């Protein structure tokens, strides 16, 4: 076993995949000698720099992603890095309008085995924090991964690199250098599209991803002292969504809270809620509650930011609300 942070697990997964498959290469800004922003590629230059498979680029996001897609079409397996998730706006054409539909429109001839990794999330860095995952899941043909732990980050990154479709891998900045976790020495992968029950409980189901899984677990821990047993479902992959795990949990608890860092209006939580309403309305004992930021741009000042973001307290009151019915 080795103890790794989220960042180390991500880099570890890429390193192992680069050793395993010479078609895997990295393309992005400041990922060479610099080691990537927040050490996102730390140590890879030292091992692979001489092979030409770590490519530092100018600040040209649309060209980086477009070139990644083109290379993937030709059989390479690029891991392109866009520094921060808010820059996804600069690459949506190449990612969400071109790459996403290639397999379908080519009638199953064109594969795009590309990973687009990027950092996001309100955290210590206090900049570039936007969570745009809800934009992405609207688009058919894109897989969207949002891990919450080092263990999941490692297993999911490996699967993402081996996947034959464009995968957007959203790495939460607050998790980057935070927790350490035991990671097996032996290789493992975690399939995309499979959620994970991070805590079992019989009373309420909380569905969350990335940083919000941790706030949900904290809320669950507090409430268990009051005799309330919360089940925390970590989606891990938001698209495709693991309906089976969510529905099975709901069947058990009958109550649902959905939490995310993206805006509530038009957010993926609405998709979870709608899916449950359509497919398991009869299992619901109370109306669904979503915990997500209000429909305003992310405010900067610390007290405003705190009011904006979901946290343990807000999740606890949402759980109490669904229990009250």
């Amino acid at each position, binding site marked *: 076993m080795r103890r790794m942070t989220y960042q180390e697990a991500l880099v570890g997964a890429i390193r192992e995949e680069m050793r395993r498959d010479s078609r895997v290469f990295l393309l992005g800004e400041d990922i060479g000698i610099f080691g990537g922003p927040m050490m996102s590629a730390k140590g890879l230059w030292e091992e692979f720099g001489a092979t030409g498979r770590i490519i530092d680029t*100018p600040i040209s996001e*649309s060209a980086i992603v477009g070139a990644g897609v083109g290379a993937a079409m030709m059989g390479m397996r690029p891991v392109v890095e866009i520094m921060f998730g808010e820059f996804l*706006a600069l690459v949506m054409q190449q990612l969400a309008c071109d790459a996403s539909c290639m397999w379908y429109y080519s009638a199953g001839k064109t594969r795009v085995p590309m990973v687009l990794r990027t950092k996001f999330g309100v955290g210590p860095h206090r900049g570039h924090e936007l969570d745009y995952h809800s934009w992405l899941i609207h688009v058919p043909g894109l897989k969207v991964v949002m891990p919450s732990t080092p263990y999941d980050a490692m297993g999911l990154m490996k699967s993402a690199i081996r996947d034959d479709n464009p995968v957007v891998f959203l790495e939460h900045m607050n998790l980057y250098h935070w927790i350490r976790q035991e990671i097996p020495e032996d290789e493992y992968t975690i399939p995309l599209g499979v959620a994970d029950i991070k805590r079992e409980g019989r009373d309420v189901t909380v569905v969350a991803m990335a940083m919000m899984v941790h706030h949900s677990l904290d809320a669950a821990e507090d409430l268990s002292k009051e005799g309330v047993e919360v089940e925390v479902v970590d989606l891990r992959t938001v698209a495709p969504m693991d309906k089976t795990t969510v529905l099975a949990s709901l069947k058990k608890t009958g109550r649902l809270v959905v939490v995310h860092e993206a805006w509530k209006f038009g957010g993926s939580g609405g998709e979870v809620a709608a899916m449950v309403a359509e497919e398991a309305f009869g299992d619901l004992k109370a109306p669904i509650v979503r915990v997500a930021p209000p429909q*305003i741009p992310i405010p*900067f*000042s610390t007290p405003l930011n705190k009011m904006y973001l979901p946290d343990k307290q807000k999740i606890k009151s949402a759980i109490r609300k669904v229990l009250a019915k």
Partner: protein
Amino acid sequence: MALTNEELLSAYRYMVMGRMVEEAITKIKGNYHPAIGEEAVIVGTFYNLRKDDVIVPHYRGALIAYIMRGASLRRLFAGILGKETSYTRGRYRGDIWGPLELNIIGMYAGALGPTLSLATGAALAAKLTKTDSVAVVSFGDGTSNRGDFHEAINLASVLKLPIVYVCQNNQFAVSTPACKALGCHSVADRAIGYGIPGVNVDGNDVAAVHEAVKEAANMARKGSGPTLIQALTYRVGGHMVADPAVYRPAEEAEEWRKKDPIARLQKELINIGVLLEREIEGMRKNMEEEISAAVKQAEGDPLPGEQVLGLDDVFAPAN
């Protein structure tokens, strides 16, 4: 068109003030991006513009340009600290943003490049309303590799817009040296592709920068269209305060430190007798007092409360 001695002295004051303000911020904000050593580009570019000209400074050095526009020091510091007295009431980060009422366009998101398009739009508005104001936008060598740069300048060229594009080439985009990120030698070389004048200038010489921008602005005012200027300087520090910049030879930065634009201008001013050596200490002391008073006020200012969150304040009401 050269600066008079009095103007040179006032440009010097802005440069010194700008550096001292940035040094003060550096102490309170580890992710601040200082413009130490690049002050000649910033002050030279935005010096003596008209109040109705629109300025769109690069994020590195933006606060110096805002000060030149008459922004309040206290409110700028409050912006760094997220206080309610800041220009955004604490809603947005104050290090890259200035108020439109001073004809400043700030950055509204973290991606580089959109400010070039926004500045181009400001120039379009000036043309449409038949005023003779201009827009002046600065940006880094790194930004010049984004699509926005190419699209905005070409658009300004075909529409003959009154705008000056100034590349504050400090030779680094985070860790990436400009020589590895630009296919051309100078950003100004690209002007030929847009059919506009391209000008190279010593970015550590405030008078030279100003002269180039002034000439370009005058041409723009007369309807001759845009100019692309490269002011070559050097980022003597890291990308941000917390970056030790270990990815480049320390000697290179040392060499450029010797070319410090403030020391260079100071020496020149002393030589021509505009500035007396004995005046410097007093001048700096006055500035220091002004800065620490502003910091103190900003620190004492209140943080925004719930009423500033503005859950119903996303759309502008009918005017």
